[in-house]
């Protein structure tokens, strides 16, 4: 395969030895793969910590060059409905695997995006094809995966990458790409990406596309482009009593930046403590924010809920 020019792909580890961090997990998975008989696996952990990478390494080790014929990657948050997932799984699992390994591998990414009902349905599918298929599932929170599925899987918990791990990845890539990068810039990359390696590498490449000589300031500028920065503006409008401007700005930010309601809520929740209002009111607003986040997660209309939250900020601006 032609080499990718997207760095997250070009520098994705393709053997166990190349993986940075998660050493315990790598060791155990490697021994499973060597015995050829792998169980269903559940990888739980934050984004950008190597879950997909490890899944890819497993299939590459198992199937060698024919890995693509024996591997199906599905993303639960993109596939509409469990029926699509089931149909694809069926179609894929119907034929036997080629080569010495007696099963194929299905990687179900972001499995926690599936509803509980969908997971129940999936559990049957897993059982039906257990002879010909192994599932590797990934999720951010294993608590969102129903017990019957967890009990059928060996669970691995991925941790956020440590600073030394992220630094070593950044430095290795910089060297190979011929970049000049300052120590502070490496630090800034780690701080901003919060242990999410995909984000760190993307940020590095985005900055490098402007100049090969990278310092911390540039990193911060690029990173600032991608933050929902106007949340502060929205809240300021609300605090000065201009509800209409606040909600218009909010809709604008959400639409133009494709930011979901939950991400907006997270940003608001962080921003509350930077506002110039009484701490008692901050606590009140936090309570309201939590309630609104819960409602959005429960499936209400994001924007109506957020408007209700902004209305609380209007009151907060009056000292209530």
């Amino acid at each position, binding site marked *: 395969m032609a080499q990718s020019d997207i760095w997250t792909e070009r520098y994705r580890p393709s053997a166990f030895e190349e993986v940075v961090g998660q050493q315990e997990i790598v060791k155990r998975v490697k021994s499973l793969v060597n015995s050829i008989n792998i169980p269903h696996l559940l990888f739980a952990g934050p984004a950008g910590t190597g879950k*997909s990478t490890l899944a890819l390494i497993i299939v590459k080790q198992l199937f060698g060059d024919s890995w693509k014929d024996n591997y199906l990657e599905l993303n639960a948050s993109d596939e509409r409905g469990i029926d699509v997932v089931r149909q694809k799984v069926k179609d894929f699992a119907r034929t036997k695997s080629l080569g010495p390994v007696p099963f194929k591998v299905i990687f179900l990414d972001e499995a926690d995006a599936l509803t509980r009902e969908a997971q129940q349905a999936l559990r049957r599918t897993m059982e039906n094809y257990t002879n010909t298929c192994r599932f590797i599932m990934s999720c951010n929170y294993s608590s969102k995966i129903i017990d019957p599925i967890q009990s059928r899987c060996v669970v691995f918990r991925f941790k956020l990458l440590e600073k030394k791990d992220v630094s070593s990845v950044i430095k290795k890539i910089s060297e190979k790409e011929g970049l000049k990068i300052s120590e502070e810039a490496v630090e800034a990359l780690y701080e901003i990406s919060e242990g999410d390696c995909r984000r760190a590498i*993307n940020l590095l490449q985005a900055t490098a596309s402007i100049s090969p000589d990278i310092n911390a300031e540039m990193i911060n500028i690029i990173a600032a482009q991608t933050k929902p920065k106007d949340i502060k503006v929205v809240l300021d409008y609300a605090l000065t009593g201009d509800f209409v401007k606040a909600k218009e700005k909010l809709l604008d930010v959400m639409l133009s930046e494709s930011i979901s309601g939950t991400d907006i809520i997270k940003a608001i929740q962080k921003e509350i403590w930077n506002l110039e209002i009484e701490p008692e009111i901050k606590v009140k607003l936090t309570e309201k924010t939590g309630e609104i986040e819960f409602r959005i997660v429960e499936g209400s209309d994001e924007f109506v809920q957020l408007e209700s939250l902004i209305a609380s900020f209007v009151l907060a601006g009056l000292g209530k």
Partner: protein
Amino acid sequence: MTSYAEKYRPKSYKELISQDQAAMEVQKFIKEFPKKKAILLHGVPGTGKTSLALAAAKENNMEIFELNSSDLRNRTKLEEILKPASEQQSLFKKGKILLMDEVDGVTGTDIGGVPELVRIIEKTSHPLILTGNDIWQSKFSKLRPKCKLVELKPLKIDTIARILKIVCEKEGIQENEHYLRQIAIKSQGDVRAALNDLQFHSASKGEDMEYLETRNQEQSIFNILKLIFQERQPFLNVFDNTSLSLDEILLWIEENIPREYQNQSLYNAFLALSNADKFRGRIYRQQFWRFLVYQGIFQSAGISFAKPQQTNKFTKYERPKRVLKIWLNNQKTVKKKTIAQKYAKLVHCSVKRAMKDFNLVKNFIKTSPKIQGQLKLNQEEIDFLGK
């Protein structure tokens, strides 16, 4: 007790206030019969269509043969009753007028109803007067060319107020002008409704005016908004008389809350709306339709009681803009989505994540034709990145 509307039904063209033009047309039609065999009087309820037909009979000293099509709607019934009547000579008087009231009641599903009417019009030896509200429905397309069409316009507020005053004088009721005017405004040009309201109101002295609103007529969304935003009432049935769904109404309310409420009231209103929406979410997730009750209460009474007292001002309500904005934005970002899809596939992440990271990764996709090639971007997508 007979209703005022019946008691004071106009008996001559002269008594029929402000429909002179229509009366002239009807008179001309009867004089010229059978040049045109049928006349179709149309207009919103309570504008005097039936009264005009009855007055026409009286004025011309003719017998009236009245049919209420709500009761007799299919072909056999029509044939049975209307046909003999249309072909016989009147026994006692010189002439006869056939009145087919409320043709809207002849539904498209009553097979043969409208075609039979058309046939009767062709054969009738007496002038046929038809009345209806909405005659522009497609089921009447065959009927319209057969008839002379005369529209009765809704009455002006002043006119209705004048009629109310005349009735008050005749009944010996003392009513203040302001009240009569309020009734006139709320009647929306419907005299019958105004008279009914007057009668009800004078019978239940001291009761609140707002009860007038419970009449079963299609309420425009603007009326509904005015009610729940400006008055303080439980309004539990306020949404019964509109064809809009609760979810559509929710959007209307959402759009217009800031036009009516500020500060504490605004907060209360959005709290109520947020609660309404919470139950809506549960309905969608769990198909538990009983929760509609709660959604309805929160977005009616909840909004109405968000303010400390009722108000009376003119507010220009706007249609909900959010859905349109989202749609427009989606049109604009179609390319973004397709690029994100291609990117996600290549780097093993979800489209959602790709959309989230888009502003970051577009920096290097934009500047690297090689990556664009690997993503198999088309020219439109590349142009989009350049913007």
